[in-house]
């Protein structure tokens, strides 16, 4: 095993990545506790980052860890904590008849089918290097340069569009997460412009949540539901 790893370091890397990914992914769907799921997700994402590294996508590997593991999963965890999420759910109990069975068969057949189809094409059939004009992918700093070039040329519009996407996401999150004030839905962006959702307390259920700590005390309003 070790010998194999020594002889083919790439295989070792791949094996590690695959292990991380699959175990992490299965963890996400199998864990009872959402927090555990989130942690499994991090594991999975680390594996994904590893595959990126192994495939000369150094920058993306870094971004994967920073954006996903660093921001997104943290966001998840934050919300989980914030909502004090119920742990009563048993992933092993399926209320919908046949759901799991259908899902299993459907997904398995689909994935198998997709793999078959991919194999039919010898895995890749596209032309080489449309955007880099045939030059090989660079690693390290070169990778960043290439990415930068690409973003500001071929994908300039997409890049700009992501800006819009983020803005709308922010606005949306802000709107959604505020407390219910049915007759007055104006935006108070002053203190929420940074894009983090500002969770509001859940007064309906009388539970003390972390959200209460960030309630805008400066603008006390009557609580209504």
């Amino acid at each position: 095993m070790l010998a194999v790893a020594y002889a083919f370091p790439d295989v070792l890397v791949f094996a590690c990545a695959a292990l991380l990914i699959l175990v992490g992914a299965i963890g996400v769907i199998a864990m009872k506790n959402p927090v555990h799921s989130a942690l499994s997700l991090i594991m999975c994402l680390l594996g994904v980052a590893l595959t990126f590294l192994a495939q000369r996508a150094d920058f993306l590997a870094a971004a994967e860890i920073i954006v996903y593991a660093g921001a997104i999963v943290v966001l998840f965890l934050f919300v989980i904590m914030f909502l004090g999420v119920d742990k009563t759910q048993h992933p092993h109990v399926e209320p919908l008849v046949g759901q799991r069975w259908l899902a299993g068969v459907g997904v398995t057949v689909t994935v198998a089918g997709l793999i078959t189809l991919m194999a039919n094409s010898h895995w890749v059939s596209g032309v080489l290097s449309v955007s880099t004009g045939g030059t090989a992918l660079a690693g390290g700093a070169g990778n960043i340069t290439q990415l930068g070039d690409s973003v500001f040329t071929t994908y300039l519009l997409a890049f700009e569009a992501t800006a819009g996407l983020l803005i709308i996401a922010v606005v949306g999150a802000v709107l959604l997460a505020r407390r219910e004030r049915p007759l007055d839905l104006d935006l108070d962006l002053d203190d929420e412009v940074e894009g983090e959702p500002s969770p509001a307390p859940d007064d309906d259920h009388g539970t003390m949540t972390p959200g209460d700590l960030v309630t805008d005390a400066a603008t006390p309003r009557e609580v209504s539901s």
Partner: protein
Amino acid sequence: MNHVAPLILVFPLVGFLLVLLNGRSLSNRFVGALATGVVALSFVASVVALVLLLHDRAREVNVQLFTWISVDTLHVPVALLVDPLSVTMCLFVTGISALIHLYSTAYMKGETDFRKFFLYLNLFVFSMLTLVLANNLVLTFVGWEGVGVCSYWLVSFYFDREAAASAGKKAFIYNRVGDVGLLVAMFLIFTHTHTLTYQGIFSSTSLLSPTVATLIVLALLLAATGKSAQIPLFNWLPDAMEGPTPVSALIHAATMVTAGVYLLVRMSPVLALSSSGRMSIAVIGGVTAFVAATIACAQKDIKKVLAFSTVSQIGYMVLAVGVGAYGAAIFLMVSHAFFKALLFLGSGSVIHSLGGEQDMRKMGGLAKWLPLTFPTFLIGWLTISGVPPFAGFWSKGDVLTNVFAHDKVLWALGVVTAILTAYYMSRLFVLTFRGSERFREVTHQHDPHESSLVMTIPLLVLATLSVLGGLLDLPWAHGFSLTDFLDPTFGFVAATPTQSTVLQTGLAIVDVAAALVGLAAAFTIWRHRVESPRFEPAFLEHVWYWDDAYDAVLARPLERAARVSNDVVEDRVIDGAVEGLGGSMRRSGEGMRKLQSGMVRQYAVAMVLGVTIIVIYLVGRVR
């Protein structure tokens, strides 16, 4: 001729229209006079036409009026054919009609629908004349149907009575069955000859193959059985007696019912092409004559007896046609018109005198109370019984002689029928005029009274005609007889075997014997009796259960079929399929709705399964 022939038609039509359009403003008297007058004028015109025709060497005149239908190869003109046959028919139709119109003015007096009666009657005369004078089958059909519908109206004249209404309907529908035959005959003829005028058809008979000709003849026979009340369509006629008695006399004895015979005679050149067809006609006629005669022996209603007697007599005519004795058929038709009209009007007079009673068991001994009706009726009775020298003897004898030449069995049947005829007519006569007076209960102890002069004059005229009718066609008067006059019309007649005078005389003796046997038997049996189950078997009284058979075989199954069609086929099968389709759509909508459970994960599964199917399809495609 071009002016006279249309006039024959126009007079009754004018009468009809005048009454139709001004009915309310005209008095009953005027309407009666008008209706009678126009028919009389029509008779005059017919006489003129006869005179003109006699001066016409061709003995055939075509009067074109206007084009009725003209499409592609189908040309139907409104045109009249004046030839010996049509003129003969016109004469006796208009003549008898005029008499019966006259009779009716008195008979129908006091009826609420007096005007309507004459309206129908005039229209009937018009239709009958159209039938007779038409120069093509389609126009004949117009008259054919016209008389049918008038008969419908007149039979159901007392529509308040359910029986009358039903009888009218029955008459029309039975006729209609025959009409289908006439239609099919026309279709066959047109398909093969591309013409429907008589002259056109007769000049292209060579285009008709024997099979087609037989089919045509059979179709025509069906038409004739309907209109002329022959087996199997004869049993509407007795029911038609629900109509007023003059109607029975005119339509259901003298004129309309002979239209079938007329049609067959008219189509004689086509009949000539099919011997099997003619044989069928003869058999139908012979059998009908016999069967109707047997039934007449057991009827209690005076008009019913006369009705079956009519059927039987027309059977003779049809028999005559079947053996190719067209002249004899027409001769019998004319003489029958005289004596049967006489008998009906006489019976009408009797009924009238008894306040509407028709049951012979409640009559008897009327001879002394009805001094004019009795002798005229006596003449009628003797005439129909075939007693010489009255018209019936000659005409029936003519028929039987011809039949004898063709088929001995049918002749025998004819003779037996003759015996029966004499028998049942005598029975009728005895029960009505002889024996004890049984009518008191009906007349509420009043004495019966003779009818007015207006009613009896026609009786007298008809009685005269019945006596003298034989002169029209005496067997030895060759060259100046009805048959000779008519001969050109028939064109080709199946050769009548010449018969020796001895044989003819022998046959005449047989006829007389038959009549006397019938008379004697009737007098013996019925002089002292009113009812006699032995001689009135139930199956005869019930018309051989003919109606019941139709009921069982046709009417009831059809009714059941209608119910089944309505309740099962229509509601459940056809509409059921439609509604079921709609229902299944609704149900499948409801069913699919259950899948729409609100469970988001199920929605996702549906999506995945959709993807799965697409992927499977694609995998299959790359393979």
